């Protein structure tokens, strides 16, 4: 690093970032393979294992199996090279042919995304690039992608999560885009498990620590708890970027004679992974100390890297660019060369190191963060180095692009280490010629029994009192509870273009201040549904993300995904994976939107127990003018007018896989709700049109927790109550419960201002979307009332909904604070941290449903704590901000926001 205070003080003009190796005398010509270094050293502990030495010692045993290579894979490498690989080459093949880099188990299935993809004239870059790029206007394109960083986050939650964010941000940057937002779908073990208290706070702090420091607003995501993730949390990270269409970058190392530049952080021994086997197989005891650790992130360096890259793009100074992520330099060198069909000559000793003793194979395998590989025309090199210097990042010319072979064959990648040739490979053999497996698949044996065990037969609450308690219990259960404790640790304001952020259904980002053009993004997944039926469960995840984008008024146009599964060597898992991919590919074809990229994460299991198959699907939509966006919360109108509340879509008795079955019965069985993507599409079209013409005050998706959850969230968002009636066909017995807690797909809760209802319902009828008037907003009532069933004050709802996470993961209270004057700001902070009846709080766990009141277990703070909380509905307008400030990212007071009519 170069930004030491002394240097700043004394050298105001320039950071001394200068290249470690002045770019001096690049050899005039490529070192021909013939010009090899001298004879191999007799004992390679004295020097690296060179190509000539490998040729001379064909019988030397190599630890390929320990590196994860199979016998036949190792044999293939020998065939490709026509000799045994050197130590460095073996390291490179083992990483590039790993599941993580080669997608060897998933490739045969993922092809469907391309084959079934609907035609799209918006797609500027698709699968196979660092991230998909979609054109959204004549001048602008967006790029987005979600990736996993599951295992590192379990080992070291903070750094694992932080570097997960860093990695996906560099993917987006490599496409030529400025990263403008992040989202994080997170899954943890049981909320009350002691290890969750270790993992979750670290992961959340890591996501926040890195993203906040990069200046990227975090606009949404998921926080899900399920015991199946206990030994294997899922930390997925999504990044969104924006670029002018003509700034699109690619990774091809085109143009023989061009210079290969490594820019960013110096290379250390972090994240070397399995390659450490090479060290320990060869070196003495001391090699233990060389063992790599989880990568450590430096967001400040990444921020500088972003600014430097963008400046280079705008000045048209780079020919090709690739980020260094998994597989580090190995991946970047081989992919850039393979993409262009060129060769490359690299002087490895020029790579700036954090530890001088690093061996060639370690440098090639290191996953040190915050590095990019650039391909630059020689005459522009100086300008590139100058830009790097301005931003205080290292930039070093480490090699040069060489021509393809005279016969038209792709060039070779030659790497020397202190004048000794340690790598001589065809780059394409590492990138494209990796093994591909059609692994055995078999439907899990227990699936039939699991599907037969339906939740629709479980005992349900059947009287108003029980229903009331169920509502309170559900909204305070960890998966449905308010996630402010998490999202408050993320900066959602930075860059000043966040129009909607969590807890809204989608994040909405303005990408053009002049025109108001913006995009909406949502990521969703439901492991329980996918466990019960991976094909339909994946379609349901797609449908939910699609609907979440649609409720904002945006038009969904593209899909990304992160497929989190157990071991592909388990035929049951492989079957789940194949079904999920088929579901997503079919679903995207039905919706007419392409998959633009994604990520597969296998081996998410502890021992023999895999996680639930967890496909996480991200959908991106476009809003021509973000001022038209529709928020999720009911709106208070001046003059106290009531909006009419409609439920769009149809409600069936669908409780299997539901949050209710899990929370109240710890039950998982049956088949998930039906999914009809043609109807989802109709619904989305209707919402976009209704938003455009101003029929909607609010729109909120129904998913986990059903109608009850959506009503509560829409009420609490701005502190506006509602009065709801249960339709006749849901009258009687447990049917009101079904109405409130069924998780039927394809449904949306909307509120429509007076004067718009006729036009709105006519539009619904015309589009063939079922609708039903179910109630009115009630700004002065201060409660959610379901006629004939229950009435719950907003303060009671808020205490139940908001208290759970602070109670589980530590209070947010601050000492020395004068007693809060009003609202929930007080509510949250007034909750005594050691909760007296915390045992009763445990929200999962079987319990009788209807009969006895669960009042004692209801997650309202102990009586003493409720008292100081002034009822929110009593708050005067002046006090309202405080109430909202604590509750969530609620919009401010007054209803001055454009777009609300």
């Amino acid at each position, binding site marked *: 690093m170069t*930004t030491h*205070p002394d240097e*700043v003080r004394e050298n*105001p*003009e*320039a*950071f001394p970032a200068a290249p470690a190796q002045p770019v001096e005398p690049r050899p005039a010509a490529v070192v021909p393979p013939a010009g090899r270094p001298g004879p191999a050293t007799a004992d390679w502990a004295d020097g690296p294992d060179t190509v000539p030495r490998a040729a001379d010692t064909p019988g030397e045993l190599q630890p390929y199996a320990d590196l994860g290579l199979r016998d036949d894979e190792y044999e293939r490498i020998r065939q490709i090279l026509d000799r045994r690989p050197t130590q460095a080459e073996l390291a490179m093949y083992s990483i590039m042919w790993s599941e993580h880099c080669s997608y060897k188990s998933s490739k045969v299935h993922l092809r469907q995304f391309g084959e079934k993809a609907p035609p799209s004239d918006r797609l500027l870059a698709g699968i196979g690039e660092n991230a998909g790029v979609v054109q959204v206007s004549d001048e602008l394109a967006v790029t987005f992608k979600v990736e996993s960083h599951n295992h590192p986050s379990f080992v070291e939650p903070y750094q694992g999560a932080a570097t997960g964010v860093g990695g996906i941000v560099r993917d987006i940057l490599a496409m030529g885009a400025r990263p403008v937002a992040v989202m994080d779908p997170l899954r943890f073990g049981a909320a009350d498990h002691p290890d969750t208290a270790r993992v979750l706070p670290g992961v959340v*702090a890591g996501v*926040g*620590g890195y993203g*906040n*420091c*990069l*200046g990227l607003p975090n606009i949404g995501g998921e926080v899900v708890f399920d015991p199946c993730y206990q030994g294997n949390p899922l930390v997925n990270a999504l990044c969104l970027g924006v670029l002018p269409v003509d700034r699109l970058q690619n990774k091809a190392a085109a143009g023989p004679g061009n210079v290969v530049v490594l820019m960013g952080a110096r290379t250390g021994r972090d994240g070397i992974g399995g390659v450490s086997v090479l060290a320990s197989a060869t070196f003495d005891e001391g090699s233990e100390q060389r063992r790599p650790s989880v990568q450590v992130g430096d*967001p*400040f360096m990444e*921020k*500088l890297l972003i600014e430097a890259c963008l400046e280079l793009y705008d000045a048209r100074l780079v020919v090709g660019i690739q980020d260094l992520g998994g597989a580090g330099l190995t991946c970047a060198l081989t992919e850039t060369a393979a993409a262009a069909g060129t060769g490359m000559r690299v002087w490895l000793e020029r790579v700036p190191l954090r530890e001088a003793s690093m061996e060639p194979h370690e440098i090639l395998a290191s996953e040190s963060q915050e590095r990019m590989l650039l391909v630059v025309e020689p005459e522009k090199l100086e300008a590139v180095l100058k830009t790097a210097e301005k*931003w*205080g990042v290292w930039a070093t010319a480490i090699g040069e692009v060489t021509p393809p072979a005279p016969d038209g064959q792709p060039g070779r990648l030659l790497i020397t280490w202190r004048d000794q040739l340690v790598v001589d490979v065809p780059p394409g053999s590492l990138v494209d010629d990796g093994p591909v497996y059609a692994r055995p698949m078999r439907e899990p044996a227990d699936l039939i029994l699991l599907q037969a065990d339906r939740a629709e037969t479980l005992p349900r609450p059947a009287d108003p009192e029980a229903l009331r308690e169920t509502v309170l219990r559900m909204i305070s259960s960890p998966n449905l509870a308010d996630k402010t404790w998490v*999202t*408050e*640790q*993320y*900066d*959602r*304001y*930075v*860059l*000043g273009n*966040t129009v909607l952020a969590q807890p809204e259904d989608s994040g909405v980002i*303005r990408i053009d*201040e002049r025109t108001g053009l913006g995009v909406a993004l949502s990521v969703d997944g439901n492991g329980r549904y996918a466990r019960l039926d991976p094909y339909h469960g994946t379609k349901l995840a797609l449908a939910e993300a699609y609907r979440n984008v649609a409720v904002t008024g945006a038009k969904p146009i593209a899909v990304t995904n992160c497929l989190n599964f157990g071991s592909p060597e388990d035929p049951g898992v492989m079957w789940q994976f194949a079904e999920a991919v088929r579901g997503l590919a079919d679903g995207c074809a039905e919706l007419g939107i392409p998959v633009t990229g994604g990520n597969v994460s296998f081996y998410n299991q502890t021992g023999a127990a895999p996680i639930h198959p967890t496909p996480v699907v991200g959908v991106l939509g476009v809003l021509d003018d973000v001022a038209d966006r529709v928020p999720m919360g009911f709106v208070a109108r001046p003059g106290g007018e009531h909006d009419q509340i409609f439920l769009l879509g149809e409600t069936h008795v669908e409780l299997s896989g539901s949050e209710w079955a899990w929370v109240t019965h710890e039950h998982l069985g049956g088949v998930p709700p039906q999914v009809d993507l043609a109807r989802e599409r109709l619904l989305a079209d209707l919402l976009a049109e209704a938003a455009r013409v101003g029929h909607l005050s609010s729109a909120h998706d129904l998913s986990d927790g059903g109608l009850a959850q959506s009503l509560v969230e829409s009420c609490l968002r701005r502190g506006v109550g509602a009065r709801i009636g249960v339709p006749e066909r849901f009258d009687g017995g447990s049917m009101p419960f079904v109405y409130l807690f069924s998780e039927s797909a394809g449904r949306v809760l909307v509120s429509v201002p007076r004067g718009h209802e006729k036009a709105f319902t006519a539009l619904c009828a015309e589009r063939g979307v079922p609708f039903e008037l179910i109630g009115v907003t009630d700004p002065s009532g201060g409660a959610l009332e379901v006629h004939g069933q229950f009435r719950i004050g907003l303060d009671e709802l808020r205490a139940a909904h908001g208290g759970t996470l602070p109670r589980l993961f*530590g209070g947010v*209270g*601050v*000492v*020395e*604070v*004068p007693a*809060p*004057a*009003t*609202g929930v*700001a*007080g509510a949250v902070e007034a909750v005594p941290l050691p909760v007296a009846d915390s045992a009763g709080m445990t929200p999962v766990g079987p319990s009788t449903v209807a009969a006895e009141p669960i009042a004692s277990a209801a997650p309202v703070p102990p009586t003493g704590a409720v008292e100081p909380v002034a009822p929110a509905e009593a708050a005067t307008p*002046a*006090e309202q*901000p*405080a*109430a909202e*400030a*604590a509750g969530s*990212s*609620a*919009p*401010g*007071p007054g209803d001055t*926001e*454009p777009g609300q009519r």
Partner: protein
Amino acid sequence: MTARVGVVTFPGSLDDGDATRAVRIAGAEPVRLWHGDPQLHGVDAVVLPGGFSYGDYLRCGAIARFAPVMQTIVDAARGGLPVLGICNGFQILCEAHLLPGALTRNQHLHFRNRDQALRIESAGTAWTNAFQPGQEVLIPVKNGEGCYVADTATLDQLEAEGRVVARYVGGNPNGSQRDIAAITNPAGNVVGIMPHPEHAVEALTGPSLDGLGFFTSVLKHLVGAPA
């Protein structure tokens, strides 16, 4: 003539673009200033924006204080140049001894981002004259190290001289002593504030428009200021 308001970019500044936008919306001409360039390019006022200057790895603002541009700004501020330090900018102003006290780790040890109610305690500064004393405003707060601390004598002096510019109301987000959210120097031209007025200047993206007042105030101040 439009006032020219400089916005400094340090390596690691994050809200410099937002501050620039706020200056523009307020009706002034934003001028980007670079940390390594000691010139102020004739600006009439300066905003030190939020972020993590130089990564804030040593202590927030401790390195930025030595940036070439800061040498010039410190001198100019002592001569009356209006300077607003927001979040990291506030930390830098404290490190540069233009303001007393320090900003330390939030008491609850978490980064926190929420819409925060503030009471404007002093409308007599270059950056708050558009407000009424006692007026409550809603502005996002987002920081990990925003807990204002000073010794009792300093706190008493700030109170006595009316130099507490804004206080948190409805809950203190970081444990700041006496709920202090913003303070000023004795002359009233240098203000440090932990919450982010630049994030409350557009109805579409902010919780209110209350932040705009900080930027219009300085324009008013400049018009009234003797040349």
